Each structure stands twice: as structure tokens, then as C-alpha cells.
């Protein structure tokens, strides 16, 4: 029992000394620490901007996609049962999310509300003279396949016509998918570059301390206790480097959001609400900075240890 207590006390002293040394050496190697911290700050800033932009683009495309609808006009000869039947048949097709049935009466009353001159005309319509069609509003699961689905619906009986913004939808979709791919590639590349840059900066920092590691080995420090202060130092560097990007994300984005009233150019492009978005992004930046800092230090020290 006493032995165990002594061992735990020893381990505790070693760890607390290593934490102390980790913080101390940030100050002792100030110029190189500042280099590492600014490197982390700059890369994390770029990552922050990329995160904010990509998340907003993502949210806009998502909203636009949700609005993609196949409007199916049903032949006026169809009875109520036949329309229900048709709805069932469409449901059985692939790629159907949901179907809303709007009768021509509902459409007429909707149109009546839009303007006074229209309402005067529509008021004269009866159920028989109403020239509009019953419509089925079909939402699809995968917008990429919207044109195929529309074609299949068109083939069904009693379908008078199908409209889904042909041409416009396809070009929008291809733009969106290109933007999404571009952002994904940029993000992955940025994270890799961040990792590479930070690891290298820390490597240079540690290279200058090769001697320190050599001496630690000579006086009998275990590999673990050599690595520990460096990893803690990496943690401190990553943490300090993340502060400015985090602050800019939280205050900068909130200010931007407030300035534009939550939308860019038109109500069509809505920005992602500042809260809790900025906190999530800051957390991502903090974790990225700290993890990359620790990983970079660990990797760099490993090079000088015979393991």
C-alpha cells in the first residue's frame, strides 16, 4: 500500500513538473514559440473562413434543393378515386419523398388572394368552368435524379403534363455539386496544409532543441518523460494559436450576421444563424489547433528518440 502511494506520488510529481516545463519552455524559446503560434493562428484563420463559407453555401444549397418539386398536372377527366390511384402509383416509384395533392379549387382560391384583378375573374369560375388542373406536388429524395423521376411520372395515365423547372434545375444542380466538391477538396487540403505547416514549424522549434533531448536521454529520462513536456508545449502553442481565430469567428461572424440582417443580397441567400454556429466553429478550431500542436510536437520529438 505504502509503495503504491509512493509510486503515485512520484508519477504525480513527474507529470506536474513536465507541465511546468512545458509552459516554461514556451517562454524560454519565445521567438520560435511566437513563430509557431502565428503559423497556427494564420492557418486556423483560413480554416475558420473556409468553415464559415462552406457551411453557409451548404445551408443555401440544402434549402434550394428542398424546394425542388415536380408539379404533376392531372387530366381534368380524372375522378377523385382515379387521382388517389395515381398518387399511389407515383408513390411506388423510386426516389419519391412525399406527395401533396392540390385540387384546382384550392389553386384557384390561392390565386384569388394574390391580386384583386385576378380575384374578379376567378370569382366568375364555377367547378365546371375552372380551367385549372388538379396538381400533385411531388418532392423527390435525390434531386440529382429529378429529371428521370419526372419522365417516369409523365408516362403514367391521366398525367397531362409535368413541370420541374427543366434546364434551370439541372444547371443549378451541377453548379451546386461542383461547389460542394470544390469546398470539400479545399477543406481537406487546408486541414492537410495546416497539419503540415504546424508540424514543420514545431519541428524547427524542436530541432533547435535536439541537444536538450540528447541530454535528457543521457541523464536517464525515459522516452515518455522526454516526450511529455514537448507534447504539453504543443498543446499550449495550439491553444494560444487558436485564440485569435476563435475570437474573430465569434465576434466577427456575429457582427457580420447582424450587419446583413441574416441574409446576403436577397432573402434567397440566408446566412446561418450566428448562435450556436460560431461556438461550434470555435470549438472545431480549438480542437484542431490543440490536437495538431500536440501531434506535431509528438512527431517531431519522436525523430530524435531511439525507440
Amino acid at each position, binding site marked *: 500500500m505504502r509503495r503504491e502511494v509512493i509510486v503515485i506520488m512520484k508519477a504525480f510529481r513527474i507529470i506536474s513538473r513536465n507541465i511546468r516545463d512545458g509552459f516554461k519552455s514556451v517562454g524560454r524559446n519565445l521567438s520560435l514559440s511566437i513563430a509557431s503560434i502565428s503559423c497556427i493562428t494564420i492557418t486556423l484563420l483560413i480554416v475558420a473562413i473556409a468553415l464559415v463559407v462552406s457551411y453557409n453555401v451548404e445551408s443555401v444549397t440544402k434549402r434550394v434543393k428542398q424546394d425542388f418539386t415536380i408539379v404533376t398536372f392531372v387530366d381534368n377527366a380524372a375522378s377523385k378515386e382515379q387521382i388517389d390511384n395515381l398518387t399511389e402509383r407515383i408513390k411506388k416509384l423510386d426516389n419519391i419523398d412525399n406527395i401533396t395533392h392540390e385540387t384546382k379549387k384550392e389553386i384557384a382560391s390561392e390565386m384569388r388572394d394574390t391580386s384583386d384583378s385576378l380575384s374578379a375573374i376567378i370569382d366568375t369560375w364555377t367547378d365546371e368552368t375552372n380551367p385549372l388542373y388538379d396538381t400533385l406536388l411531388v418532392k423527390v429524395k435525390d434531386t440529382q435524379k429529378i429529371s428521370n423521376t419526372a419522365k417516369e411520372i409523365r408516362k403514367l395515365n391521366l398525367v397531362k403534363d409535368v413541370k420541374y423547372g427543366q434546364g434551370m434545375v439541372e444547371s443549378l444542380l451541377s453548379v451546386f455539386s461542383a461547389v460542394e466538391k470544390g469546398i470539400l477538396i479545399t477543406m481537406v487540403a487546408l486541414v492537410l496544409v495546416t497539419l503540415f505547416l504546424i508540424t514543420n514549424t514545431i519541428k524547427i522549434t524542436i530541432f533547435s532543441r535536439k*541537444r536538450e533531448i540528447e541530454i535528457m536521454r*543521457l*541523464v536517464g529520462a525515459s*522516452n515518455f518523460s522526454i516526450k511529455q513536456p514537448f507534447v504539453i508545449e504543443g498543446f499550449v502553442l495550439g491553444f494560444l494559436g487558436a485564440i485569435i481565430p476563435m475570437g474573430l469567428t465569434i465576434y466577427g461572424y456575429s457582427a457580420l450576421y447582424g450587419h446583413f440582417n441574416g441574409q446576403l443580397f436577397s432573402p434567397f441567400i440566408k446566412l446561418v444563424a450566428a448562435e450556436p454556429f460560431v461556438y461550434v466553429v470555435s470549438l472545431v478550431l480549438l480542437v484542431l489547433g490543440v490536437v495538431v500542436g500536440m501531434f506535431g510536437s509528438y512527431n517531431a520529438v519522436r525523430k530524435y528518440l*531511439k525507440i
Partner: protein
Amino acid sequence: MEFIKFKNVDKTYKNGVNAVYNMNLEIKKGEFVFVIGASGSGKSTLIKMLYREEKPTNGEIYVGGINVARVKNSKVYKLRRKIGIVFQDYKLLPKLTVYENVAFALEIYGLPTDEVKRKVLKALDLVGLKSKVKSYPDQLSGGEQQRVAIARAIVNSPKLLICDEPTGNLDPDTSLEVMKVIEKINDLGTTIVMATHDREMVDKMKKRVVLLDNGKLVKDYEKGSYSNYEGV
């Protein structure tokens, strides 16, 4: 029983250089042994194998009962904690004070702070530098720096002190001063193995001398029997 034993040790470096050839050597506990020889005679390799910086290609090396050649890389630190090492270039950390440099070797074991303090001051007292605890290495003379390095090597009370050309950078008077300190440590019971070029000093010290030439042990002089003027 011998404290250090080299048994049929060969060392060939990866580039094909044959540094040590069929070495057999025994050193008793508490002995003071000089290892001399020209550059390239294998002195440094012998010393490096003792603290397991290099592994012998063939043969066995025992230090205090441990087969050094068999120690794994990840366990080398356990061996290093049992021995003290002093180098020609001192190997002090320039950004740490004298006290911190010496304490460094103890803190890695997790000793309590008051015990660290007691041992560090005792070691610095032994080398005569108790008054310089707050100085930085570059504020000290070469001899003083080497004494700090010696204090660091012995602070953990090792059974063996290995010295690789400890006086190589020092003038004769300072060398003698440093040698006195090392002799004092030997008197306290620590075994000392020292590689050196300085034959005059070896002559003065009257200790056991091992002469190497081209990787071979050519002569083993008993304590006091070596003379610089023998014409070797």
C-alpha cells in the same frame, strides 16, 4: 567480482569501420581506469558501448551485473540512471541555471523537491560550486562548467562515472583542478572509467591505464606502473 566486464567484444560500424576488435577487459568496483590511445584507436567506441549509445556487434558487456548489449532501446534510460557521464563539451543546457542543470537529472525520477534541493546542493558543494547556483553556464569558465557537468553526473550517486575526454577543452591547471574533483569522487567509492588524450596528466595520476591501438587492447598497466616516458 568484477564490476565491468568486456567479453570478446567486437564492434563494426555500419559503414564497415572496425572500431573494436576482440576486447577483453575487467574492472573492479571502486577502480579508477584511464583508457588511452591515439585518435581512432577505439576509445570513444569503448566508452559509448559502456553507456549503451552503441551496441557491440559481438560479445558481451556487463556493467554491475547487467548485460548492456541486451538492453532494449526503450529501457536504456534505466541503465543511464545507474551511471554518470561527463563529456568533453560539458553538454549543459544553456537556458537553465547551474542549479536547474543539476536538478534536471533528479527531477526526471520524480523525487520530492526538498530532496532534490538537498542532493543538488550536496553535489555542487562536492565540486566546489555551491556559490554559483544561480549562474547560467555561459557566465562560468570552462573548468567551472565541467564541474557543473560532473555534479550533474554524480548527483544521483551512481556506482560508475564515465568520462569521455573531460579535460579536452581545458588548460593544464584547470584540467588538474577537474581531475582532483574526479579523484575525490573516486575516493568516495565510485568506479571511474576515463578516456583521455592527456598523457601527462595520466602520468601524474598514477592509476591503472588501458592502452588501445587500432581497436585492440595492447597493454594494461597496473596502478602506478604507467609512465609517459616509457616511449609508447
